C-alpha cells in the first residue's frame, strides 16, 4: 500500500538500484497474443526445461513480456545481462537449446538469431 508519492518514488528507486547477487541473466519472452500464436508459450516452457537441465536456473530468470512489435520474427525474446541486451528471433522450440547454449551459457553477441538491439524509449 502506497500512502503518498514519496513512498512510491522510494520503492521505485529501490527496485532500480537492486543489484542482483550474481550476474543474473534475464530472458524476456514476447507473450502477447501474436507471440503466443507463433508458439511463444511452448518456447518459454522449453527454455525453462533446458535451463533446469543445465543446472543454471539459479542465475537465469525467464519472464514473459509484451509485444516488441517485430511480428516478422515471432517468437521473439530479449536476453538481458546487466545493462546489455540483445533481441532474438524467430526462436522456435527446436531452437531453444541452441539459444540457451549460445546466448545464455556463452555470451555470444552475434548469431543467426540476433535481430537487433532494444528500441530507444522516452524512459532511457
Amino acid at each position: 500500500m502506497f500512502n503518498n508519492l514519496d513512498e512510491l518514488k522510494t520503492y521505485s528507486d529501490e527496485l532500480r538500484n537492486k543489484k542482483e547477487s550474481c550476474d543474473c541473466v534475464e530472458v524476456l519472452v514476447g507473450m502477447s497474443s501474436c507471440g503466443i500464436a507463433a508458439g511463444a508459450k511452448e518456447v518459454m516452457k522449453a527454455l525453462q526445461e533446458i535451463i533446469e537441465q543445465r543446472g543454471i536456473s539459479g542465475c537465469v530468470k525467464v519472464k514473459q513480456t509484451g509485444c516488441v512489435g517485430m511480428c516478422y520474427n515471432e517468437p521473439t525474446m530479449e536476453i538481458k545481462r546487466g545493462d546489455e541486451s540483445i533481441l532474438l528471433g524467430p526462436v522456435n522450440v527446436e531452437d531453444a537449446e541452441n539459444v540457451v547454449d549460445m546466448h545464455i551459457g556463452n555470451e555470444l553477441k552475434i548469431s543467426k538469431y540476433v535481430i537487433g538491439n532494444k528500441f530507444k524509449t522516452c524512459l532511457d
Partner: protein
Amino acid sequence: MIEQYRIVLRNCGVIDPDSLDDYIKQYGYQALGKTLAEMTPADVVAEIEGAGLRGRGGGGFPTGFKWKIAAQQKSDTKFVVCNADEGDPGAFMDRSVIEGDPHSIIEAMAIAGYAIGASMGYVYVRAEYPLAIERLNRAIDKAKEKGLLGDNILGSDFSFDLEIKFGAGAFVCGEETSLIHSIEGYRGEPTTKPPFPAVEGLFGKPTIVNNVETFANVPAIILKGKDWFRSIGTESSPGTKVFALAGKINNTGLIEVPMGTTINQIIFEIGGGIPNGKKAKAIQTGGPSGGCIPVKYFDTAIDYESLKALESMMGSGGMIVLDEDTCIVDTAKFYLDFTVDESCGKCTPCRIGNKRLLELLEKVTNGTADENTLNDIQSLSQVIKDTSLCGLGQTSPNPVLSTLKFFPEEYKEHIVDKKCSAFVCKELYQYVINDSCVGCTLCSKKCPVSCIEGEVKGVHIIVQDDCIKCGKCYEVCKFNSVDLVPGGLSNV
C-alpha cells in the same frame, strides 16, 4: 537512417505486464502521484493542451481541449472512457499496448479523471481481445491492492474506479456516441453531435472518450513536461505515432516513429522494403475511412494535415502496403465491402448508399460498367459523405474517392479496355494454352472442373465457359504453355 523512438510502446516488450513492480520500476504511477500532489486539475488540462497531444484514434482532435470542455461542465458525475474497440483492418496497436503495458492506461485514465473531475472510468475493449481483457483485469486488481486505484489514491482525497466493458464486435462502436450507447446497454448506434460527449455523454453526463494510444502518451507528458513532448514530431502534430505495418512489406509489425517521418523512411528504412523484388504501388492508411497514397507522394512527412491533404487520414495507424500486383479498384472494393458489412443501418445514405456504391464498383471490376459509371460513383460518394449521420458513413467513400483521384487510368482501363493489368479481377482475364503445349495432359488431370480438353501429345484447349480461373493449370504446367491474358468477358 531513421530510428524508432518509443513513448507509447515504452514498456511493451520491456516489462512483464502482469507485474506491478516492473511498471513501478519504470517510473509507473509517478505521473499520477505528481498530478495529485503537485498539480491542480486545471494545471493537468493546461499541460496536456500545451503539449499539443491530439487524438490518436484517427480524427486528431486536440485532447487537452476535449478535457477542458469536460472540466468546465458543472455536474456531480463525470466519466472517463477509454476506446479500445480497435476495428480497422490491419491495426493492432491498442491490443499490443493493453497486453504489454496495461498499467499505463489505468494510470492515464486516473489522471484524466482527476483533470475533469470524474471518479469513474470505463475501458471499452472488444471481446475478441481476451488476453488484453485478462491482463487489464489483473492490473486493475493489483493497482487497487496498492492504493493506486480506488478510494483515496496515494493518500489524497481523489478516488477513481475502473470497469471494463466488452464490445460485441461492431465496428461502428469505435464511434464515440455509438460506444457510449453500447456501454449504456442500448444498441451500438450513433446519434447526432452536438451535444458532444464532453458536454452530455455517458448516462447524460459529461464524458471524455479517448483512444488507448492517446492515453498511453499522458503519463509520459506529465512526467517529462509539455515542452519535451513538443520537441518531438511536427509543429501541428507533436509526439510520435504508432503504425501497424502490414501487407506487402518485409518487416510487418508495430513501429513507433516521431510525427513528420516520411512514408519512404517507414517503408524502406524501418519496414525493409517490398518482398520478392516487387515495386511499391501505394500505401493504404486510415482503414476504411482513409485512402490510398500513391508511390509518387512517398516523400511526404506524415502528420494529420499532410495525410488529409492526400485524401487519406491518419486513422488509428494501420499502414497497408500495396505492391504492383495489387488491383486498386479491387482494394477500394474491399474496404467498401467492409463498410457495407459494418454499417449499423440507422441512416439511409450509409445503409443503402454504400450498398449501391459497392454495386457500381462491382460493375467496374466485372466489366459491365459504362461511361456513366464513374460519374455515378463520384456523385453518390459525395451524397454519402454529405448526408451520413456519423463518422463511419461520412468517411466510407474515401477509399473510392482517393483511388479514383490518384489512379483514374486504372478505373478507365477496367471500364473502357475491360482489362485488369494486375490480373486480380476474375471476369477480366483468362487462361489460354499456347502452341508450345506438348500434350503432357498434366493440366487436364489437375483441373478441378475438368474443363481442359485435348489428345495426348496434342495441344490442349481450355473450355472458357466452364473455367473457374483457379490458376491450377498455370501453376502445374512445366512448359510455360499456359498464358494469363486480358479478356474473357464473353463468359460473363
